[in-house]
């Protein structure tokens, strides 16, 4: 079969006035065949989004050619043929919905193509059904979750009856449930409708089921092959600042202990099979080690946050009133790291906005440090100085031209002297790894995404808070950006006396960072405990579609398969330690 997409020595160079040209894509040649599932990975700035925009003539080549079926993308006459053949779903769910209700948005593409009314109705019904959004067809888009919006966007593309679906980081801003649903739909469309899928992502586990993985680096194809062929080369991937999927990571560490575990396993089933083949029925080689070295460090017990039965209503006393919090219990001990887990709409944003008095309780108890928020006279401005709240996508709040000025905004509001402000800015910027002397006079817009986020974090740290609240600090970042932020938070924690509240739905992060976790659902605290407790009894989390860390999932799977390993390993080091008891070869 002839390829549906043929790229021949594609170059794309961005020429912006007054800047030096950027070679985003450097001589890529590529063929994609009908029915293929191709995943393109690469860190930010590797050229993957630029490449994607060439697939439906949103960008035209600087040099080289892109052919869709037999249409060259330079040929303006076939622009609509190309765009209806290669449908594209973008990253931000909010910025690609045109209409004010779901079904009309799905109809937008075919309306543009002049599809007659009867056929339009049929296509919209069909497309909504494909993505399981039929029951939401009359909803306005702002009343959908991110994942639902992306499903609407996919339906909007499918209604044009394309041959190829391009997902340009369409899962990057979604919560785990939304991400899983979008991926399931893409895989199902690929299998059942024969749709060609090109997915761009920096979540490696999304590449596991692909037919082919293409790794981009600095505008070139660095690696290409089946997932197994590509992820086998873990060292090479790390050089390119990329990860391997969690199961592969575990397999490779076990391979180092016992070479009979293959280093290129991709799925849990394969891992269980391989471990069972090696272990057989033999007894552990070394005695069990207790989890004693992982017990949480002792706290001095003072509660810095004490919240019980917290209630909050939005649009109180209007017909549109919504009860966002229906009874939340939450507390933080001095010096502790506490995670809050829950899906969009579970009430976690509402809860953390109480922590610095942005919202006031409408019921229940809320004491933060020495402030009783139920007392209308509580000095919330003073409270906000002591509790630093870092919003999700905090880089959106930067507004000054220079990085240093932006970080100085908070301290300046405190009425400090010039020297004091400067000192605080220096300290905060250095703490987030943006060297004061190098970065203070840089333009904010010239920073990378990860650097911007760190600058925003510095803006809060410059207030010298006692409690730091971070809402999804790694959302939307590539693996390198994620690791930098997490490392930074851990170092901050070690160097200063900080209590930390971390909102996350990345369970690996929770396992690595937190001493305790609270699970929220539908405005209530459902359960709480140490990560070990929460993850060793995973049913509640599964029921809420929240999941558990990948390694814990692997340990549960191994234990279920009859290998008597501990189920409560929550970090990869623990899991490797536990498994090595069975895997160390006899000498």
């Amino acid at each position, binding site marked *: 079969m002839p390829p549906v997409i043929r790229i021949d020595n594609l170059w794309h160079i961005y020429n912006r006035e007054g800047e030096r040209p950027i070679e985003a894509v450097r001589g890529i040649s590529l063929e994609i065949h009908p029915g293929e599932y191709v995943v393109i990975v690469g860190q930010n700035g590797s050229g993957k989004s630029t490449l994607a925009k060439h697939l439906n003539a949103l960008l035209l080549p600087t040099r080289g050619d892109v052919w869709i079926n037999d249409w060259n993308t330079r040929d303006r006459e076939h622009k609509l043929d190309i765009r209806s053949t290669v449908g594209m779903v973008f990253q931000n769910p909010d910025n690609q919905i045109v209409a004010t209700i779901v079904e009309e948005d799905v109809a937008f593409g075919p309306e543009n193509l002049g599809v007659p*009314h009867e056929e339009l109705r049929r296509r919209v019904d069909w497309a909504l059904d494909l993505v399981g959004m039929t029951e939401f067809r009359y909803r306005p888009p*702002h009343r959908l979750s991110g994942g639902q919006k992306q499903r609407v966007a996919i339906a909007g593309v499918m209604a*044009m009856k394309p041959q190829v679906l391009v997902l340009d980081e369409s899962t990057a801003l979604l919560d785990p449930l939304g991400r899983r649903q979008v991926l399931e739909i893409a895989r199902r469309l690929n299998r059942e409708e024969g749709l060609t899928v090109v997915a761009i992502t920096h979540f490696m586990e999304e590449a596991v089921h692909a037919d082919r993985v293409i790794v981009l680096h600095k505008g070139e194809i660095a690696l290409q092959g089946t997932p197994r062929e590509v992820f086998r080369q873990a060292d090479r991937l790390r050089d390119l600042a990329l990860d391997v999927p969690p199961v592969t990571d575990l397999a490779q560490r076990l391979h180092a202990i016992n070479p009979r575990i293959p280093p290129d396993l991709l799925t849990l089933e394969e891992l269980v099979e391989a471990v069972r083949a090696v272990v057989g029925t033999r007894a552990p080689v070394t005695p069990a080690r207790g989890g004693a070295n992982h017990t949480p460090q002792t706290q001095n017990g003072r509660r810095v946050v004490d919240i019980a039965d917290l209630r909050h209503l939005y649009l109180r006393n209007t017909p549109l009133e919504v009860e966002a919090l229906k009874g939340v219990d939450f507390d933080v001990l001095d010096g502790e790291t506490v995670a809050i887990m829950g899906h969009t709409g579970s009430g976690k944003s509402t809860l953390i906005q109480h922590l610095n008095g942005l919202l006031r309780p409408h019921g229940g108890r809320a004491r933060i440090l020495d402030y009783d928020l139920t007392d209308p006279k509580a000095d919330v401005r003073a409270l906000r100085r002591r509790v630093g709240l870092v919003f999700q996508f905090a880089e959106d709040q930067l507004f000054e031209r220079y990085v240093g000025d932006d970080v100085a905004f908070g301290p300046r509001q405190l009425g400090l002297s010039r020297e004091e402000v400067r000192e605080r800015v220096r300290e905060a910027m250095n703490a987030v790894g943006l060297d004061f002397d190098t970065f203070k006079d840089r333009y904010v817009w010239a920073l990378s995404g990860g650097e911007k986020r760190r600058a925003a974090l510095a803006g809060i740290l410059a*207030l010298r808070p006692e409690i730091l609240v971070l809402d999804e600090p790694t959302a939307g970042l590539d693996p390198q950006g994620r690791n930098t932020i997490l490392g930074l938070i851990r170092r901050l924690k070690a160097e200063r006396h900080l209590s930390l509240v971390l909102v996350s739905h990345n369970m690996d992060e929770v396992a690595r960072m937190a001493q305790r976790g609270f699970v929220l659902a539908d405005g209530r605290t459902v359960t709480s405990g140490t990560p070990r407790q929460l993850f060793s009894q995973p049913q509640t989390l599964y029921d809420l579609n929240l999941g558990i860390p990948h390694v814990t999932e692997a340990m549960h799977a191994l234990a279920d398969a009859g290998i008597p390993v501990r189920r409560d390993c929550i970090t990869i080091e623990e899991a490797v330690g536990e498994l090595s008891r069975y895997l160390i070869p006899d000498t």
Partner: protein
Amino acid sequence: MDEFELARYVTIGQYLPLDSRVHRMDPRFKLVAFTALVVAVTFTPSYIGNAVLLVLISYLVVLARIPFGYALSGLKPALPVLLLLMALQMIFYTEGFAGPAAGIACVPLFKVWLIEPTTCSLKLALVSAARFIELLMLTSLLTLTTTTTELAHGVERLFAPLQRRINFPAHELALILTIALRFVPTFAEELERIMKAQVSRGARIGGYGRFRVIQNTKALLPVLVPLFMNAFRRAEDLILAMEARCYVGGRGRTHYTELHSTQADYLGLALALGIAILVLAMPWPW
């Protein structure tokens, strides 16, 4: 304390999803009826005319099952200005539509120092207030019972003949309206988020007291700059998304939603037009 809860103050596009005859009316007819009533309210100088309109509009609010207080919720913040306006009209009014020019004699009510309100100035004040309340209820009535989508379709179809004849951009207008309304909740949420983020790092928004205009305006920069930058970024994204979905303008587009009018729509429109003409054409005595 709900200082950051912006949705409370944004009532535009706050559709109340109830089922009523007013809700179900064909948006084209609803828009024409609305326009007729707005014209009637604006040009009726008499007590009786306004009373008729007030009764009619109140009846429509009841018919639409909207809580009365909610339809009037915009009145409270405007009340001080409205009262001041009425007072000024009472004091400074000399003549106008309610005065001798219209063939009505003005009878002084009382006199304090130089201030001498007459029946004419009293009428002007009362009629202005009534108009304000009527317009407020009318707009609430329209936006609370009509989804933004229906509004956009109504505008597009009403002006479609003009597009064919004099190339009036009806489709583009409707699209702009749709996108604008589509993003109102998005921007409201974003504004709220940015305000909260800046307050969290010590910003004092509106915290300088009423008369320190410069400080208060400067304090808005940390909110407005990110809001606009994000809006531009969203606009760029949206252009790409629309292009990717084959948008090339209104030519050759088909329509998913078709509007169907019923007898009740014609009746409703006839009622509104009839009353509007009656109110405007009758030489009401007072």
